[in-house]
């Protein structure tokens, strides 16, 4: 696609720079390698969940239950590992299966019974929260019995060693360059406009710079955190699904005009149920990551994560009416959210103020969405 930069893109970049500048001044540790490494883990978790949320917002739905779901799925895995002494990889399987099943069921209820997603998933929010607390018996359940690292705890404590990190970045850049060149050639051969060679080069160059800067930073600490790699994989998969499959096209069509999509032969119900089921899979991944990051399944794991995910989507240019939104935008939105939350934690901002700040950001983002939609 030919690149168009909008005022919105610029305001996003500006707000990110403003957030970083503010916290860098307020707390010198904000830009330390250690904190940036932590920030990248938090970004990875928020962004992964937000990418799942994108799949249901695109066709014009929503999911308020993912936060509770994150807690529940992490809780199930933790209880199996800690109380029942299952090996971690084995414990992941039922946790993931439960998530897929739950979200398949929610999607089915939403489209077959025509109950608004808002209501179904609001019910889900409460039900999963209760189920979560039942599962962990409102105790704290560590993910690694006796503090011995297992696959569960390694999810957020494994780092790709510095040398391998450089190698990976080189590979990623090589792949990006190949894809860009091939894409340009194909678009040109089909008679479409392409970016100027200079602009295309600049984009690749800046991407390379950013990736290199990121690796330089995290390598000062321990290397690329595993969650970032997981995010990379999830983002790649979601990008392919949304941009290069009929299913993804159908998601955009349903969000753009559901009646027209239906009459055009889009299997609307199947597509929406599919989107919710995929979201279930992503809730499972996020649940395992977030629980591992907390070190244990406790009653607060996953709290308000649905709102962070929705905020990340909307900040990143996803329309709550459906039909508009991109993977890159959502990751960017998640970066802004994660930067804010991380900075506030670093400054030891009180939970009260944190709630208020989150709320203000979410409201502002939605307000902006509505404003832009009216044009």
């Amino acid at each position, binding site marked *: 696609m030919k690149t168009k930069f909008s005022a919105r893109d610029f305001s996003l970049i500006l707000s990110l720079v403003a957030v970083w500048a503010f916290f860098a001044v307020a707390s010198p540790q904000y830009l330390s390698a250690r904190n940036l490494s932590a920030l990248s883990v938090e970004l990875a978790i928020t962004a992964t969940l937000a990418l799942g949320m994108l799949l249901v917002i695109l066709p014009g739905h929503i999911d308020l239950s993912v936060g509770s779901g994150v807690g529940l799925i992490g809780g199930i895995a933790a209880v199996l590992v800690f109380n029942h002494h299952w090996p971690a990889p084995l414990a992941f399987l039922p946790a993931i299966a439960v998530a897929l099943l739950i979200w398949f069921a929610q999607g089915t209820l939403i489209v077959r019974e025509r109950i608004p997603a808002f209501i179904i998933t609001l019910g889900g929010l409460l039900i999963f929260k209760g189920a979560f607390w039942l599962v962990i018996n409102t105790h704290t359940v560590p993910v690694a019995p006796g503090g011995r690292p297992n696959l569960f705890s390694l999810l957020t404590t494994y780092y790709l060693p510095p040398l391998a990190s450089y190698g990976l970045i080189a590979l990623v850049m090589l792949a990006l360059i190949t894809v860009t060149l091939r894409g340009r050639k194909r678009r040109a051969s089909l008679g479409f406009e392409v970016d100027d060679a200079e602009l295309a080069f600049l984009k690749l160059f800046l991407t390379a710079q950013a990736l290199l800067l990121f690796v330089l930073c995290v390598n000062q600490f321990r290397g690329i955190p595993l969650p970032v790699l997981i995010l990379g994989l999830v983002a790649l998969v979601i990008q392919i699904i949304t941009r290069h499959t009929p299913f993804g*096209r159908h998601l955009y*069509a349903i969000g753009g005009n559901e009646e027209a999509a239906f009459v055009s032969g889009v299997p609307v119900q199947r597509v929406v149920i599919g989107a919710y089921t995929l979201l279930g899979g992503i809730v499972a991944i996020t649940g395992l990551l977030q629980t591992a990051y907390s070190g244990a399944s406790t009653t607060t794991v996953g709290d308000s994560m649905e709102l962070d995910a929705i905020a990340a989507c909307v900040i990143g240019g996803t329309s709550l009416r459906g*039909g508009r939104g991109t993977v890159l935008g959502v990751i960017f939105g998640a970066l802004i959210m994660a930067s804010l939350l991380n900075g506030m934690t670093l400054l030891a901002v009180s939970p009260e103020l944190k709630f208020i700040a989150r709320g203000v950001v979410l409201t502002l983002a939605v307000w902006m969405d509505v404003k832009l939609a009216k044009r």
Partner: protein
Amino acid sequence: MPALLEACAITKRFPGVTALREVSFDLRPGEIHALCGENGAGKSTLIKLLSGLHPHGSYEGELRLDDRPAQFRSIADAQRNGIAVIYQELALIPELSIAENLFLGCEPRRGLLIDWEKLYTDARTILGRVGLDLSLETPVGRLGVGQQQLVEIAKALSKQTRILILDEPTAALAEREVEILLTLLRDLRARGIACIYISHKLDEVFAIADRITVLRDGATISTHATATTSKNGVIRDMVGREIKDLFPRVASQPGDVLLQVSHLSAAPSPNAPPRLHDISFAVRAGEVLGIGGLMGAGRTELLMHIFGAWGVRQDGQVVIDGLSLHDATPVQALAAGLALVSEDRKRYGLVLDRDIGFNLSLSSLTRLRRGLLLDEEAEVRANQKFFSSLRVKAPSLETVVGTLSGGNQQKVVIGKALMTDPRVVFLDEPTRGIDVGAKLEVYELVNRLTAEGKAVVLVSSELPELMGMSDRIVMLHEGRVGGEFTRARATPEKLLAAALGRQLSAA
């Protein structure tokens, strides 16, 4: 005679386009002035200017009202000056009653509360002025489009309107409703209300207008008194050429029966009374079957039901090319070789904020697959094929569909249907709201389809189109077949009688 409303050398620019170039137009007191032009000629832009939607300062030139400069800042401002617009898309709230809609936003009050008694008395009076005799408590959503339009006009009249602007008012109306509307407009004219009337239907224009102004490519081409010009003259002005044959149907040799509908009955929902009763007809390869009828006769429901997008089957059978369709969804209908071009392209046809390519291939994506992924090269090739063969006028496949004119949007909808390679094509009002040139292209396309051995079902509210383009015609009357005619035997009188549920004696 001094002009009531006058536009003097108006130029309106949008980013990249000049929509109006030095357009001049004047409306005299108590006249009906028709505005004609192909889509994209600048009619809508001019209306938006006159109604304050494009406020003063956003254009060059001058508007004059009562021979004084007028500077409308908003729609409300223009309304205060007595100008009201009835748009093609009606601005009524379906769930509210007629009376509530009439006074929406200016409810009579007693203190803080609504004065319901006055509201209903006044509503009765206003409704009387447009000749509607309906229960004031009926939700507007239950009225037909024609009646809704009358309610909208009544609403405008309640606001001391002196100038009524109607944008394609009859696009969705059946002949009888058109007649009611035209009578009303003549009546209003007699009472001194001036009217700007925009329509593609020249029959109506010549039946009602005192003067006719033609716009083309954003410029005024001509203004004539109706008596001193002719339809051919107006068409020549509109398209810049003469259209000799408006309905170039070339009949082809009918082949096998591709669509057989027998004793079909269907209702909107499982427990509702049926809307379609015992309908039977057949369409052969290479044949155009026309379906006519008044508004609400069930034409659209019939097509949508067969296609699997409306209602519940209660009885009967639909067989497409030997394959029986029952409780089908559009997915199955398309797979069976049936394609539908809906009458409401904005609602059922297009994803407006997506590009042409996205819309063209939307129905064919699952067949443009390589493994799990889209074969994007095959998609673009298919898109380009229909983009050029249908002559969509747009810079590229990546142009957003919502920015296209009605005729070009319609071509995209048709292209989307044809890309599925159907054997039977349903065209529901395919020429509604599109200009003369684009209409001709649609007719030629119908000929091409039948020449390729496809079967076409054409629904139309316009009798000339129905008679001009169909090989056989089925008229529906209140959800039943009111009569079936061959092209040779069809006359307007017979068709109308069948639509009204009457048999002409000695037919």
